[in-house]
């Protein structure tokens, strides 16, 4: 094998277009982080380390043949469930909720694992029953989704629970859940809304009411939304220029390296920057859809479709939250926000997409 061949085989399973889109977004992340961190290399350097780790994992997953991927579904899901139950019983209370499990050596957050584990398990289940799908199968799949979601919502981690619900719903939807059931669920959700409202804590209602009039709580919860919206709006068409965002650098923006990093970006790069960012996201999502439509088995189709749609949802929810059209839930901007865990989960997902794309010929033959 020549050196050239070696390197080619090394990157053979990395989908070039997806890689390009992801890399552009990650580059953007480093650029924005440098500004959000007040022109310090502290967080950008840490983020580089996060990226490196996550990239390695992505490469490993991308090189795994599909049947390996499928075989991981049950163990990942089951261990995820065991860990979730473990968290509910013995979890460490940290950062306000029982989300972490202390394994002695390290602490882990099983809900993060389930972001992959749930759609994986559901796709696996549908593949197993592909030939004879009845309504009962959809019901069982929905149960596979609801069990972990309930456990996670009780931690309480409502944001993650909702996102996992979305990713599981996408699997159900792509697997052909009948429109009647979807319509029924929609009506049921509408009907349940007033009931839910009456069951909510005051502070949760507060957050939703704030959407309509953030100014009524300028010292408390409305502060985040007001300052973030000012940052986005004052950016204008061209933006205030890199490192020149006044909202950012005068400390008006909260959590500006994590959940609110989009406000920093938007203030400094303006509408043009936002369009470029949306274009980058759209490119990645588009590529995901292409891979999905190529996918050779039922399992991979469902998996690829769910990963792609979930990714798009993450991006939408975060940008919607920062620009004031969705309530403030703790969802980072995918691939841009500072943080190692969500980076790892996202790139694991992309690793699967790449594996699905680059191994499909083998399966077909």
């Amino acid at each position, binding site marked *: 094998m020549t050196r050239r061949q070696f390197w080619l085989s090394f990157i053979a399973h990395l989908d070039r277009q997806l890689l390009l889109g992801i890399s552009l977004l990650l580059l953007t992340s480093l650029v924005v982080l440098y500004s959000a961190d007040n022109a310090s290399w502290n967080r950008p350097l840490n983020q580089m380390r996060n990226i490196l780790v996550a990239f390695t994992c992505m490469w490993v997953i991308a090189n795994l043949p599909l049947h390996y991927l499928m075989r991981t579904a049950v163990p990942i899901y089951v261990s995820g469930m065991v860990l979730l139950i473990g968290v509910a019983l013995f979890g460490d209370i940290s950062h306000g*909720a029982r989300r972490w499990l202390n394994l002695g050596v390290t602490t882990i957050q099983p809900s993060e694992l389930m972001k992959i584990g749930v759609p994986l398990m559901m796709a696996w289940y549908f593949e197993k029953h592909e030939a004879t799908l009845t309504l009962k199968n959809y019901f069982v799949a929905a149960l596979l989704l609801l069990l972990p979601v309930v456990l996670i919502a009780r931690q309480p981690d409502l944001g993650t629970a909702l996102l996992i619900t979305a990713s599981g719903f996408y699997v159900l939807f792509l697997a052909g859940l009948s429109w009647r059931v979807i319509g029924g669920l929609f009506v049921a959700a509408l009907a349940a809304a007033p009931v839910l409202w009456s069951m909510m804590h005051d*502070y949760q209602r507060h957050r939703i009411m704030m959407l309509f009039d953030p100014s009524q*709580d300028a*010292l408390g919860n409305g502060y985040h939304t007001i300052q973030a919206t000012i940052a986005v709006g*004052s950016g204008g068409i061209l933006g205030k220029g890199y490192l020149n965002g006044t909202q950012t650098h*005068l400390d008006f923006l909260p959590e500006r390296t994590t959940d609110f990093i989009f406000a920093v970006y938007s203030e400094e790069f303006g509408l043009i920057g936002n369009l470029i960012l949306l274009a980058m996201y759209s490119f990645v999502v588009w590529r995901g859809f292409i891979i999905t*439509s190529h996918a050779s088995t039922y399992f991979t189709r469902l998996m690829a*479709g769910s990963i792609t749609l979930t990714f798009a949802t993450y991006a939408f929810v975060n940008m919607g939250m920062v620009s004031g059209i969705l309530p403030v839930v703790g969802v980072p901007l995918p691939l841009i926000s500072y943080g190692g865990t969500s980076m790892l989960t996202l790139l694991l997902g992309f690793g699967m997409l790449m594996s699905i794309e680059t191994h499909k010929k083998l399966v077909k033959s």
Partner: protein
Amino acid sequence: MKRRVEFKNHLREIFHFQLRLVIGIGFVSILLAILLVRFFYLQVARHNYYQTLSESNRIAIVPIVPNRGLILDRNGVVLAQNYSGYTLEINQSKTADIEATINDLSTLVEITNKDRKRFKKLLTESHDFETLMIRNRLSDEEVARFAAQQYRFPGVEIKARLFRDYPFGEKTSHLIGYIGRINDTEVDQLEENDLAANYRGSDYIGKTGLEQSYESDLHGTTGIEQVEVDAGGRAVRMVSRTVPVSGNTLVLSIDAKLQEIAEHSFGDYRGALVAIDPNNGEVLAFVSKPGYDPNPFIDGIDTQSWDELNNSPDVPLNNRALRGQYPPGSTIKPFMALAGLNFHTRKPEQPISDSGVYYLPGSSRQYRDWRVGGHGSVNMFKAIQVSCDTYFYGLATELGIDNISNYLSRFGFGKKTGIDLEGETSGLLPSQEWKMKRYQQIWYPGDTVSVGIGQGYSLVTPLQLAFATATLANNGVAYKPHLVKEVQSTRSSEHRFIARDPLYDLNISPKDLDLVRRAMVAVTQPGGTAVYASMGASYQIAGKTGTAQVVAMKQGEKYDANKIDERHRDHAWFIAYAPAEHPKIALAVLAENGGHGGGTAAPIARKVMDYYLLGKVPKPLTDSEVKEAAEHD
């Protein structure tokens, strides 16, 4: 043929999937369109508006933390106060290498190993953006030295802050508790209760004791200062200011001097003492020995000191007065006697003959009296005076467990007293239902026998026993025990009094009360079990001794204190009130592993009563006096 059907199905399925995928793409496109519209709206249509807002957004809102309320004793002695001082703080996000920074800093100000350990612990518990304290109580000299070198430390600053101080240290630790840094769970609780805005800028919150239970009074209302900032974010001008309102002052019913004397009287014994004014439920002294120094807890105690406290066999962190559950032993007897009188089970003058052993009808199991050979002919008065076990074995059997648990619960046994501290335990008043639920077993007659002398399943807290004693001393009129007498508002001259009305009246017959109260006086007179308690006293003391078994004796085994490991020795109880005619103080004393109540617990009670009633400050006991005292009971 079959293959073709499958093939066809496959094609149809793919078609369906592609259809769903297209709908998915449509869905994502809608999301994209929503964002585009929103961005266009904010950044083009409303740009001028937000531009103006952003430019005028030079007004920073700075919270001003209110002074925490003081805690005073009933005479105005300060038990918790604030003092101002300087701290050295490190902003994590602005400091690249924290370890190196601390090393550099230690050349300017003293940073001990304990400071480092504590800082490390804070670091693991905090968020990245938080500013953490590395040193507090800097001297003026240290402040000056650092100020001159400050340019070398970008993320480090000196701040003037108010600190909490507990001048009585471990003597009031279980009573006052302490404050500590607000953790994430507490942040969530504050948010849920809509208090988060009032805690902006606050770093501390009450963690235990009165600091915790009166948090809403002590914290105060946060003020707001709106300041104009320059391009660098520095404040240049104050725009408006809402002054903070200091927290309310707590005036306790505790007498600090009495508390100190009670603490001191325990000597090396572990245990608890609760003294209550029976006329109104005011708690006069509330001791749990050993205590701990609450001051290091405020800014996060270092792991090593924490482990020492936490792993100590003396469990200093356990609030024995509030949470310690012990068998009441013979201190239950006056209440048992009242139960017997209430249900007309035995006539007071009706004597029994005590040979030192009690048998249940038709059983050969021995229930022994503490005195070998027994007390001879014993009526109810004498049974209390000499603490005759045999009398109460029989009384309990005749009463039956249902009557016993019914009557004792009226005195608050098996229930929380509702004192103004969190974490109270409820003791255990056994009943048939309880045993069935707990052990899935029926109640045996033998169980009732042990309950008659306060052993078996019975458990009480020192606070409960003090409450019951106070209720007895006040002729059955119960007041909820409370540590805080009044809450004084700093805003107005308004005072809020805590619990001034009686809880309930047990309506005990005066004749019954008279008998039991006279018998309890006889306990401290010659012929009683606690003679030493009233030796030379100028007022009459009513009391009752008790011993709580730590390790159960086997049938036929004899208790010998010298043969038993110190921590397995019996606990000593003494309950008392004085002056016997018109009681001003009622108390319960527990000395862990103190042996007999008359010897170790009663002298402690006496010193507390002497000070409270006569203002007499005790002199330390000599060894021979202690020994002499221990021989009675």
